C-alpha cells in the first residue's frame, strides 16, 4: 500500500510543478497502439455490424437487407445447434483442461531434474501449429490406413471422425492435447510465485502434501485460475483452424461450432450478411463472458493474497 501512496504523491507533485506537457507527450506514445486498435478492431467491428444488415455475396455489389439477415439467422435451427455445441465444447474443454493443467503445473513447478525433463516433453505440442496437429491426428486416426491398422490395435480402429459423438469427443481431446501445455505453463509460473514460507509454516503445523495443496496452492492460484479460464473460455469461441482441418464441421453438422458456421456461411455459401450476424453474436458472447469472468475475481482486485506476510 505504501508504494502506491508514494507513487501518487510524486505524480501529484509533478502536476503541481506544471509539467503537464510531459504527461501529454506520454499520451502521444499510446498513439500507435490506439491506431492499431482502431484499424484492426474497431473498424472491422463497425464493418461487420453494417454488413449484418446488408446483402453481399462477397463478389458483387453490397445492397441493403434491413433486418432480413437477423431474422433468417435467428430463426435458423442451425444457429442454436452451433451455439449449443460451442458452449458444450467450451464447458467440457474447461472441465478437462483445468484440472490436468493445474496438476501438471504444480508438478512441473518442482525443482527436481526429472520434472524439468518431463516439462519439456509436456510443452512440445505448443510448438506445433493447429493445422499440423489436425493433419497429424487425421492421418493417425484414419480407420483404414491409420495407426490402428499399422499396429494392429483393434480398439483404436474406431471411425473416430466419421461418427458424430466420437468426432465431438475427439475434437475436445485434440484441443486439450494442444492447449493443456499452454495452461500448464501459466500454472507453473503461478505456483512458483507462492512464497516458500507458507509451505514451511504449514509443515510446522503438521499439514501433509494434500492439505497443503488444497489450503495453500489452490487459494494462492485464484487469479491464475481466472486468467487461465478466461483465455480458455474466450479462446474456445474462436476454435476454428483445428476443427476446420480435422472434420470441416462434419460429419453432418456435429462439429460445426459457431466460428466455423460463420466461415462456412460467409466463404462457402457466399452469404456474407448472415455470416456477419454470427460474427456480431460471437463478439457479444465473447464480451459477456470476459466481463463475467472478471467479476468472478471479485471487485477487490488489488486485495492482497499475501495478507500479513
Amino acid at each position, binding site marked *: 500500500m505504501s508504494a502506491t501512496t508514494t507513487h501518487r504523491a510524486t505524480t501529484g507533485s509533478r502536476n503541481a510543478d506544471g509539467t503537464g506537457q510531459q504527461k501529454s507527450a506520454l499520451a502521444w506514445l499510446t498513439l500507435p497502439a490506439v491506431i492499431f486498435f482502431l484499424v484492426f478492431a474497431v473498424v*472491422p467491428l463497425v464493418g461487420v455490424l453494417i454488413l449484418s444488415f446488408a446483402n453481399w455475396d462477397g463478389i458483387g455489389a453490397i445492397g441493403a437487407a434491413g433486418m432480413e439477415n437477423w431474422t433468417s439467422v435467428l430463426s435458423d435451427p442451425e444457429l442454436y445447434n452451433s451455439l449449443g455445441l460451442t458452449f458444450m465444447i467450451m464447458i467440457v474443454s474447461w472441465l478437462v483442461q483445468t484440472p490436468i493443467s493445474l496438476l501438471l503445473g504444480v508438478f512441473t513447478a518442482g525443482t527436481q531434474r526429472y520434472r524439468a525433463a518431463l516439462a519439456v516433453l509436456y510443452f512440445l505440442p505448443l510448438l506445433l501449429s493447429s493445422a499440423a496437429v489436425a493433419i497429424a491426428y487425421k492421418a493417425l486416426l484414419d480407420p483404414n490406413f491409420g495407426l490402428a491398422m499399422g499396429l494392429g490395435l483393434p480398439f483404436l480402429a474406431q471411425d473416430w471422425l*466419421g461418427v458424430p459423438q466420437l468426432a465431438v469427443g475427439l475434437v475436445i481431446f485434440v484441443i486439450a492435447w494442444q492447449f493443456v501445455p499452454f495452461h500448464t505453463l501459466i500454472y507453473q509460473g503461478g505456483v512458483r510465485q507462492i512464497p516458500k514460507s507458507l509451505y514451511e509454516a504449514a509443515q510446522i503445523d503438521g499439514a501433509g502434501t494434500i492439505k497443503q495443496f488444497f489450503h495453500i496452492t489452490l487459494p494462492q492460484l485464484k487469479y491464475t485460475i481466472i486468467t487461465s479460464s478466461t483465455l480458455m473460455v474466450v479462446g474456445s469461441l474462436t476454435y476454428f483452424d483445428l476443427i476446420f482441418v480435422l472434420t470441416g464441421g462434419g*460429419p*453432418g453438422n456435429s462439429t460445426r461450432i459457431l466460428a466455423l458456421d*460463420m466461415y462456412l456461411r*460467409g466463404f462457402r455459401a*457466399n452469404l456474407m450478411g448472415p455470416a456477419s450476424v454470427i460474427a456480431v453474436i460471437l463478439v457479444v458472447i465473447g464480451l459477456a463472458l470476459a466481463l463475467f469472468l472478471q467479476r468472478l475475481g471479485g471487485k477487490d482486485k488489488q486485495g492482497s493474497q499475501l495478507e500479513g506476510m
Partner: protein
Amino acid sequence: MKQFQSSRRSFLALAAITPFAAMATTACGTSGPGSASGGGASMWFLSGEPNQTTIQKAVDAFGAANADNKIAVTYFQNDAFKTKIKTAIGAGQAPTIIYGWGGGTLKSYAEANQVEDLTSWFDANPDLKNKFFPSSFGAATVNGKIYALPNQYIAPIVLFYNKNLFDKAGVQPPKTWDDVMSLVKTFNDMGVAPFSLGGQSRWTSMMWLQYLLDRIGGPEVFKAIFDGKPNAWMDPAVIETGTKIQELVSADGFIKGFSSITADSKADQALLFTGKAAMMLHGTWTFGAMKKDGQNFVQNGKLGFAAFPTIPGGKGDPKNGVGNPAQYMSISAKATDTEKETAKKFFKDGIMTDTVIDAYIESGSVPIVNGIEDKLASSPDKDFLNFVYDLGKNAPNFQQSWDQALSPTAAEALLNNIDQLFLKSITPQQFAENMNATLGK
C-alpha cells in the same frame, strides 16, 4: 482501481478482436501473387499429378516462346482453391487467369462483372472455337455470352472396380441396382468394403445422387431444380433417390469411416487399388492419378470401369452421363490490359497445344478437342479412353456437376444436406424439404 480498469479494457479488446482475427486469418490470407510483374499474367491452378506437371510444362514452353509474356502459376489443393479463388475475386486480388468449372460459380462472377466477356474474341478466332467439343461451351456461357475458355478434358463420373476382387468373388460388375445390392452382400461377406468413398469432401457423395436421380427420374428433374421451378426438389424421384442412398448406407455399402475420408488425400483411390474396397464411383480424372500412384495396378489391367447401373422402372436413359463437361479458364476483368492480352495469347497458343493434348491422353484423359479419335485409338489405354469418349460425347444428356451448376449458396446447402443424408441424420423427405427452401437462392 486504475489497474483494474485497464486490465478489463484489454480483455474487452481481446474479446472483440478475436472473432475478426479468426475471420482474417482464415480467409484473407491472400499470400498468392495477385498479379505478375512486367507483361506477364498470373494463374492459379490445382495441385496434384499428373496435371500439375502437364500445366507447368505448357506454361514453361509458352514462357520460352514469349519471353516478355510469362505466366506465373501458383498451385492449390482442390477444395482449398474453391474457397480461395472466390475470396480473392471478392477482394479484387484475383489472378489474371481464373480456373474453374463454369456453371453457377462462373455466373456469379459474370453477373458481378469480374470476368471478361470473351464472345467477340471467340468470334474473331473461329479456329479456336471450332477446336473444342461444342457441348463444352454450355457451362461457359452465361446469358448467351461466353465468359470462359473450355480446356483440359471431359470428366464424366464412372464406376471403377477392382478386377482382382471381382475375379476372386467370381462376380460381374453391376448392371442394375439389384446387382449393386447383391454385390454389397458378396463383398461384405468376403470382408472387403463394397464401395470406396471420400465422404468428407461431400461432392464425392453428391455424384451418387446425381446418377441415381438421373436414372430414376430422368434429366428433367434436375433441369426443373436448376431453373428454380417451385417445389422442384419435392419430386418423388428425389425422395426415391434419397431412400436408395440410405438403403445402401444401411447395408454397409460404403467403406467404414467414409465420412472422414477426403478426396484431396486420394485415400478413396488408394482403398480401391490396394484391394480394401471393390468399387468406387468417381471422376475419370482419378484414372490418371491411380495410374501414377497405383503401382502398376492400372498398367496391369486390374482397374475395371463401367457405366452407372440402371434402376428398374427408371425414366432416365442409361447412356446419360454426369460429371464435368470440361474445365474452364476465365480472364479477370480487374487485370491490366497487358495481362489480359498475355492471357488471351496463352489461351490461343499455350494451353491446348498438341503436347498438352498428348500429355492428357497419356495420363488417361479425353481432351475436349475435336478429331482426336485416332490418337485415342493408338493409346495403350484405348479401351478406357473410348469408353469415356462415348460417355462424354454421345450421351443423350450430360449433366454438369450439381455443385458447380447451382449458385454457390444453393451448392453449399446441397453439400451440407447430402452429408447429413449419408449419415442418416435426416430422412429423404427432410432432405427434399431442406433443399426446396434453397430454390431461387
